[in-house]
């Protein structure tokens, strides 16, 4: 039975988790609540196509379902879901890499379709190109830098949330963000044309 948006909307994350454990249909509410946000995150992490991103999300939610009793109520549900989705996305990217398909070589414009909302108002075409270039540059960074930059500046997460997603101490998050910013700046200086608006 598929539940209506009204029913889903009345319940908090924690209530939905409890209800899901009693009746699986409520789990679809959680999926719908976080689908857009997590799908966008999977694409930002470098999963190229829409189909692949959806597969990643489906697999991640299956894992979340199987481990629903492991959810620690001290955490935000979003952080916990991000963690599972993150691991699934990384696993997907590694698999692709091992088959010789490096995601950096397959730059797909579609993955940035939802990103314009972060850009300031200006020439949309130029902005979109800059946005794409920024994401191209993020793809050039080592994964440990890319993931913190995406979570901090694109997903707007706090240090505590990033710590919960990546399962690293908050101090390490701060250090990694600092180093990632330096690495990104260095890359931007090497390719200033990427940031020209």
């Amino acid at each position, binding site marked *: 039975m598929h539940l209506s948006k009204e029913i889903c909307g009345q319940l908090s994350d924690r209530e939905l988790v409890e209800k899901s454990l009693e009746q699986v249909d409520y789990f679809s509410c959680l999926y719908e609540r976080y689908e857009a946000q997590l799908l966008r995150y999977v694409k930002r992490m470098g999963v190229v196509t829409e189909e692949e991103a959806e597969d990643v999300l489906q697999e991640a939610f299956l894992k979340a379902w199987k481990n629903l009793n492991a959810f620690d109520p001290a955490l935000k549900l979003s952080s916990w879901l991000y963690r599972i989705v993150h691991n699934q996305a990384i696993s997907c990217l590694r698999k692709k890499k091992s088959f010789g398909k490096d995601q950096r070589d397959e730059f797909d414009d579609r993955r940035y379709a939802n990103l314009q909302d972060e850009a300031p108002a200006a020439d949309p075409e130029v902005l979109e190109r800059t946005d794409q270039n920024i994401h191209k540059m993020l793809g050039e960074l080592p994964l440990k830098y890319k993931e913190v930059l995406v979570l901090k500046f694109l997903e707007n997460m706090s240090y505590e949330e990033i710590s919960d997603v990546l399962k690293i101490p908050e101090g*390490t998050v701060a250090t990694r963000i600092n180093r990632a910013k330096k690495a990104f700046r260095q890359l931007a200086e090497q390719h200033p044309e990427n940031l020209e608006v």
Partner: protein
Amino acid sequence: MKPSEKLLQKIIEEQSEPAPRWHFAVKNKLLWLAFGLAVVLGALAFSVILFAIQQTDFNITSHLSHSGLELFLGLLPFFWIIMLVAFLLIAMYSVQYSRRGYKFTLAKLVGYSAALSILLGTLFFIGGGAERLEQAFALNVSIYESIQEKKVRIWSMPEEGYLAGEIVETGLGTFRLKDFQGKEWTVSYQDAFIPPVVLLERGEKVKLVGEIAGKDEFAASEVRPWGGVGSRMRRGGGNNGKKKG
């Protein structure tokens, strides 16, 4: 079909169920139990290291004519050091993989585990448990060279100036000593430094620093108790060192 419906269908088709709550609770408790156990075992290892340090005269290595470094390395209780490091790693690993263990930095994990092991180990050492544990180990593990055996090895080098054994007979300015190989020596100690804890009695075990003075003769410049610092504490020695003769 909407992706959320697809997900539900998959769950129902696969008859997938969430793993029970107790499964995760047990896993978490086991990790903390492993942490506790590793800290206690690390503490035992640390206490034996303290005992080894107390029993071993590292300062003599600087006086030896052959490789002091080689001897120093030979004296280190490597087995217990490796044990301590291994248990610290297990303790750190256990916490890190517990539910919220990722919140701890590596420095905190090392610090807390080591501090607990050091604290418990020191208490165990003060209580005399380290000596008993080490002895039990030496008795039951044939390949293990005990601290006592290492010590005997070091203090059985009269040609290097180190001799130890049991006093079997006392005289004026001399005593007869039976070393750990069963050989008897006449030891002269007229000018020797002798701490008050040494009573120079029959049956007393002592270690000597000095030189060979002739066939089966040894001139001691220092006479120390065999047991190290612990023997002073046990026998209640209090006054300063003096020369006996």
